[in-house]
C-alpha cells in the first residue's frame, strides 16, 4: 500500500557502504525526500515492495544479490516496474553502462559522483515520473 505523504517523494538507498549511505541520506534529506536503506540485494527487493519508493539509488556491487539482478527483478514485477532506478557503480566504461541500461535502469552513475550532479539528476527523474503518472491535479 502506498503511504505517501502528499507532496513528498521517497527514495530507497541500496548500498552496503555505510559512509556512502550516510552521504546519500543527507543529500536526499536536504531536498525534503524521505529515505529508507537496504544493505544487500535481498533487502533491496523486499523494501522496494514494502517502502514503495519513487526511485531507488542502487549500488551494483551488493552482497547476496547484485544490483543488476535486483534491477532485472524489479522490472519483471508489475508492482515495481515503474520505480525509477539509478545505478551506482565504481566500474566505468561503455559496456558496463550499456548493460545497466539494458537491464532497465534509468540512469547509470559512476562513483565517485558529483553530489550536485546526482541531486539534480534525482530531481529531474522524479519530476518526470510525477509528470507521467500524474494525470491531473494532485
Amino acid at each position, binding site marked *: 500500500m502506498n503511504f505517501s505523504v502528499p507532496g513528498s517523494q521517497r527514495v530507497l538507498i541500496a548500498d552496503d557502504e555505510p559512509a556512502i549511505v550516510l552521504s546519500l541520506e543527507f543529500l536526499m534529506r536536504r531536498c525534503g525526500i524521505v529515505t529508507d536503506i537496504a544493505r544487500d540485494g535481498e533487502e533491496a527487493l523486499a523494501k522496494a515492495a514494502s517502502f514503495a519508493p519513487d526511485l531507488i539509488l542502487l549500488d551494483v556491487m551488493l552482497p547476496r544479490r547484485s544490483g543488476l539482478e535486483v534491477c532485472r527483478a524489479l522490472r519483471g514485477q508489475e508492482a515495481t516496474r515503474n520505480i525509477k532506478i539509478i545505478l551506482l557503480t565504481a*566500474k566505468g566504461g561503455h559496456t558496463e553502462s550499456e548493460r545497466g541500461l539494458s537491464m532497465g535502469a534509468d540512469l547509470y552513475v559512476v562513483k565517485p559522483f558529483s553530489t550536485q550532479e546526482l541531486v539534480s539528476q534525482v530531481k529531474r527523474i522524479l519530476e518526470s515520473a510525477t509528470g507521467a503518472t500524474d494525470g491531473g491535479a494532485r
Partner: protein
Amino acid sequence: MLQGWIIVCASFAYIGFLFAIAYFADKRADQGRSLISTPYIYALSLGVYATAWTFYGSVGRAASDGVGFLPIYLGPTLMMILWWFVVRKMIRISKINRITSLADFVASRYGKSALLGGLVTVIAVVGILPYISLQLKAISTSFSILLQYPEIVMPAKAGATGIFNDTAFYIAIFLASFTIAFGTRQLDVAERHEGMVAAIAFESLVKLIAFISVGIYVTFAMFDGPADIFSRALAQPDLASLVAPFGAAAGTYMSWIWLTMLSMLAILFLPRQFQVAVIENVDEKHLNKAVWLFPLYMLAINLFVLPIALGGLLHFGTGSVDADTFVLTLPMAEKQEWLALLVFIGGLSAATGMVIVETIALSTMVCNDLVMPLLLRVTRLRFMQHGNLSMLLLDIRRAAIVLILMLGYFYYLVAGEAYALVSIGLISFAAVAQFAPAVIGGIYWKDGSRLGALAGLSAGFVVWVYTLLLPAFAKSGWIPQEIIEHGPFAIELLKPLQLFGLTGLDQMTHAMLWSMLANIGLYIGVSLLGRQSAAERIQATLFVDVFSQTGDRTGFWRGTASVSSLQSLVGRFLGPARAADLFDTYAKSRGVASADALESDARLVRFAEIQLAGAIGAASARVMVASVVEEEPLGVDEVMAIIDEASQAIAQSNELKIKQAELEVATRELRSANERLRELDHLKDDFISTVTHELRTPLTSIRAFSEILHDNPDLDAEERTRFLGILVKESERLTRLINQVLDLAKLEAGAAEWRIATLDLRDLVEDATSATEQLFRSNRIELTTDLPDNLPPVVADRDRLMQVMLNLLSNAIKFCESGIGRVQVSLRCEDGSVRVDVRDNGIGIASENQQLIFEKFRQVGDTLTDKPQGTGLGLAICREIVGHFGGRLWVESALGSGATFSFSLPAQAASAT
C-alpha cells in the same frame, strides 16, 4: 681654462639633465602618454651596447690591431639583420610570461627553477664585473687626463694613490647613488623603466655626436681628409699593416670569426642588452625598424675609429700616449678645450649609460632570483606576516647596486691594469656567451632540460673562470704566475692558457673553444640522457611554441583560493592600492563589475601569479601563490582533484586543524602512491580493475562529504564533526588500501626490497606478541604462547615476517569475541621446517571460504553487521611473503569452532649456540 671644477660641474650638469629627462619620461608614462613608444627611441636605446669601450677602447684596439676592432660591431649588426626573429621570439615569450630579467627567463623556461635563476645571476654578476670596472677605469682615466690640460700625462696606475684618493672610487660611489635614484624609486609590475630608456636613448645620441665631432675634427681639421690620413699611414711600414684586413696584426680568420660570434651573443645576452631589447620593449613592431636603424648606428659610430687611430699614431708616434685615450688627447694636443670637454662628456655618457642599465638589470636579478628565493626558503613563515614587502624589495635592490659597483671597483683595483680596455670587455662577453646554449636551446629545443642547463652553465662558467679570469688576476700579480706558466700543481696539461696542450690560439679563442665545448656538450648530453619533470615540459612547450599559442591559457592550477587572499598576497608586494587597481581592471576584463564579484577559479590564480612574477620573478611567485592555494599547481588526475577538495573542506574547520595535517600527509602519500601505481604497468587487468573499483569506494564518500561540507556551510556542528570524522576515516582507509595494494603489487612483481637475515623465530614471535599486548588487553582477549627453545633459525626478512605475525594476530583478535576470546601462539619444528600456529576460538571460517580469504580483496565475516574494516589484502600479502622464502601459509578451521592459521619456513642448519 679647463679646471677641475669646470669638468665636475659640466659632468653634474649633464647628469642632472639626464635625470630630468628620465623623470619627465616616467611622469609621462604614469599618465599613459609614453614618451618612448617609438621605434627610434627603441633603436637608440639599443645603442647602450656602445660603452666607454667603444668610445675609447675601439681606437686603442685599432691602433694595435687595425681593422681588427671591427668584429665586435659586425656581430651585433649581423645579429640584427639575419637573426632578428630570435629577438622577436624572446620578446614575445617575455611579454606573455612576464619575464623580468635574463635570470628569470632561464629559470622560467626550465620549470621555474630557482637554482638555475640563482646560477645565472651569479654568473652574470661575476662576468660583468670586469666590464663595469672598465667603465670606471675609462671615466677616471679620462678625468685625470683632462685635468692635466693642457699637458698630456698618462695617469698613475690603478690603486697607486690608495682608495680614498682614487677618483675611480668616488666615481663608483657616485654612480651607485645615481643608479639607485634612477632605478629604484618604485617597483614596477613589469620591471619597465621608461625614464631610464629615454635617458639612455639620449645618451646614445650624445656619445654618437661627441665621437663624430672628434672624428670630423681629426680627419678634416688635423689632416686633410681620409685620403690624406690613409696615404700617410701607408707610407709608414709599421702603420701600413693596420690598414689591411686579415693582416698579421689584424688577427687570423679564427679570431675574427670567434669575435664576431662572441659579439653576436653579447648583443643578446649582456644583461643590459636583454633589458633594453627584450624587457623594455614596448612594441614588437619596433623591432622591424630597429633591424636597420641599429646597424646604421653601429656604422656611424665606427666610421671614424680607424682615422682617429691612425691620426693619433701619426701625431704622437707609438709608445708615449696610450692609444685608448686618443679621442681625448688629440683635441687636447690641438688646444681644443671645448671639444675635449665634449669628448669627455661623450665618454662619461657612454660609461654611465652602461653602468646604469647593467647595474639595474643585475640588481633586479640579484633581488628576484638570488635573494628572494633564499629568503623564502629560510624564513617562509615569518615572511607571510610581513606587511608591505615592496619596500624590502627595493632595499634589497639598492644594496645590490652598491655591492655590484663596489665589487666592480675592486676588480678595477685588482685586475684593471692587466689588460687594455678591449680585452677586459671581451672577458665579460665570454661570460655572458655561456648563457647562449641554455637560452637558445631553451627557445628552440623542447628537450633541453633543467639539469642539462645547470650542467652546461656550470661547466662553461668554471672554464671561463679558469681560462680568462685567473690569468687576469695572475697578470696583475694577485696570484702566482707559475700557475699560468706551468699549470696548477705543475700539471702542464691544465695550463689555463693552453688547456690540454692546445696551442696556437689566442687567449680569447682558446677560452671560448673550451668553455663552449664544455657548455654545449654537457647541456645536450645531460638533457638527452635525463628526463624532464612535468613542470619543465610544460614550460618548454610554452616557450618553444609561443607563436602557436593563442587565447587565454588558463594555466595549470587545480585548486583555488579566495579572491581576497590572492589580492592581499599581491598587495603585499605591489602595495594594496596597486593590487586593488590590477584586480579591478582584471575583473572588468572578465565582464564583472568589481573584484569582489570575481569568481575564484584557476584563471584568477594564474592572473595573480603573473602579477607577482612581475615583481619577484616567476619562481618565487609560484612558491607564494602555491602557499596560499595550498596545493601543487600540476594535478593531473581526477583523484588528485578530489583529494584536494577534501583538503580544503577540512581546512575550513578551525577545530580540526590537526586532522587537516593528517589528511595532508595522506594526500601526499596518496599522490606519491598514485605515481608509483602508474609505474607498475604490468599488473594484470582484473587486478587493475578490482583495485580501482576498491579505491573508488572510499573515494566516493570522501568526495561526497567534501562536497556536502563545501556546499552546506550552515551545517550544525554535530553533523559537521561527524562528517569530517568520516572524511578522515575514509581517507585513512584509502591510504591503508593503497599501501597494501602497492605492497602486494611489489611483492608479486618481485620488485620488493628484502633485507635477508638469519632469524630466530622465537624472538620474532615474542616481539610480535609484546607489540600486540595492548590490543589484546583492550579487547579483553587472552593470549598464551608455547615457544620452545633451541629451534633452528630461518632465513628471511625480519620486518616482513613481523608483518605476517601482526596480521595473523590482529585477524585472530578481530574474529574472537571480547571477554571469552582466547588466542594461542605456538612454535614447532617438523620435517626440516619451523612452523608457527596462531589458534583462536572465534567464529571460525566455513570450508568454502577457506581458500577465498587468501585471495585479493576477499573478506568474510558477519555480513549483517558493519562491513569489516580490513582491506581484504592482508592474507594475500602474507602468503606472498611466506612464499618468497620457500614457506607455506594455510588455515585449518570449522565454522563455529575457531581457526588456526599456520605458516612454515625452511629451517637452516642450527648454528652453534
